[in-house]
């Protein structure tokens, strides 16, 4: 077989994969595939995109939405303003080290341990020093650090609590604060810059600095 003949067979793999190769060419290509590992690998590679491709609505491709032209500059201005004054809590949710607290009426909880969003959620063993506190936690290993989702009640209503993540090297890195909700269940998303692999545990401290809850992150 000449290189040109081989190239013609190889380029026919696309039509073959999408079911558009004329029947009179199909048997020759299949015979070639039987003896050519390179072309079999090529066919596997291009076929791998078809299941997802099949679901694309071609009409959507005719229109590519773009953000408004000034959005980039608005973001830079907002960042500049942030850099120039004390960090403010954003309108909605956790920043690098601010805990978000959701008070859930009726106690329904929207979380489950297990795989979520492609990122595994790992149940964390927690121990409360105060018998009033009922808590469960899961850890989510992000690329930027570990997130602890704390689902609890019994922290004194109105009191401020601080959370720190303990790193293997002994560092304690702040992961935000929350206000106790008494008997109302709450969910806090606590973000820390400590990577999951470097984290050994977390602690909830009361205003006096006493540990009221511990979480163990050593187990894998």
């Amino acid at each position, binding site marked *: 077989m000449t290189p040109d003949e081989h190239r013609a067979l190889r380029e026919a793999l696309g039509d073959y994969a999408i079911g558009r190769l004329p029947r009179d060419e199909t048997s020759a290509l299949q015979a070639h595939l039987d003896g050519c590992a390179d072309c079999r690998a090529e066919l596997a590679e291009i076929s791998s995109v078809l299941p997802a491709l099949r679901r694309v609505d*071609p009409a959507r491709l005719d229109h590519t939405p773009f*953000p408004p032209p000034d959005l*980039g500059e608005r*973001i830079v201005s907002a960042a500049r303003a942030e850099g120039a004054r004390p960090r403010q809590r954003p309108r909605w949710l956790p920043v690098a080290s601010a805990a978000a607290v959701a008070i859930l009426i009726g106690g*329904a909880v929207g979380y489950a341990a297990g795989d979520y969003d492609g990122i595994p959620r790992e149940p964390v063993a927690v121990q409360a020093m105060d018998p009033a506190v009922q808590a469960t936690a899961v850890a989510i290993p992000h690329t930027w650090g570990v997130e602890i989702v704390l689902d609890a009640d019994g922290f004194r209503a109105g009191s401020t609590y601080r959370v720190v993540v303990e790193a293997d090297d002994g560092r304690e890195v702040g992961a935000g604060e929350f206000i106790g909700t008494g008997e109302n269940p709450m969910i806090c998303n606590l973000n820390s810059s400590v990577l999951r692999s470097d984290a050994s545990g977390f602690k909830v401290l009361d205003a006096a600095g006493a540990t009221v809850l511990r979480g163990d992150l050593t187990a894998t």
Partner: protein
Amino acid sequence: MGSPPGAPPTDPGLDTEAGLRAAYSAHGPEIYRYALRQLGDDGGAQEVVQEVFLRAWRRADSYDASLASLRVWLFAIARNVVVDEIRRLNVRPWRRQLTDEPESGRDSIGPAEDALVDTWLVEEALRRLRPEHRQAIVQAYLRGRPHAEIAAEAGVPVGTIRSRVFYGLKALRLAMDEMGVEP
């Protein structure tokens, strides 16, 4: 933001305005389309994009280029921001029964079903292809039109459509690999 030892010099850090602008130009529009697809709302999508880049700016020192590409890191943040936004709006368009607690009636609040995200990813990947490759795939595969018709419209020989289908599919696989989509 230092670069790891031995790594080539990196772009200006995300904690600089130049770095933030560069990151936005490279990834902002795609994050916007992702948020738009998830929320179905232009204002909400813009807010998500702003929040993603502000969080990235605040956490610039925790980004490690040796662990993840900037795109992957920004999308990890974007998924969280979208979850937060969905929760804030208390809109739950993606109700997914939790299999481990069948009678609780709870829903997890999260981005759309995987299938929807996959479809969005392929669309983004198609947008990265050369127009002639994208057209060949769309016309021959998605619209099922005969090669001869597509070739006549494009003013090229019929055999050219065949090779465009093949190289287009290869380019699409490569674009999806670059976007971190496993085969």
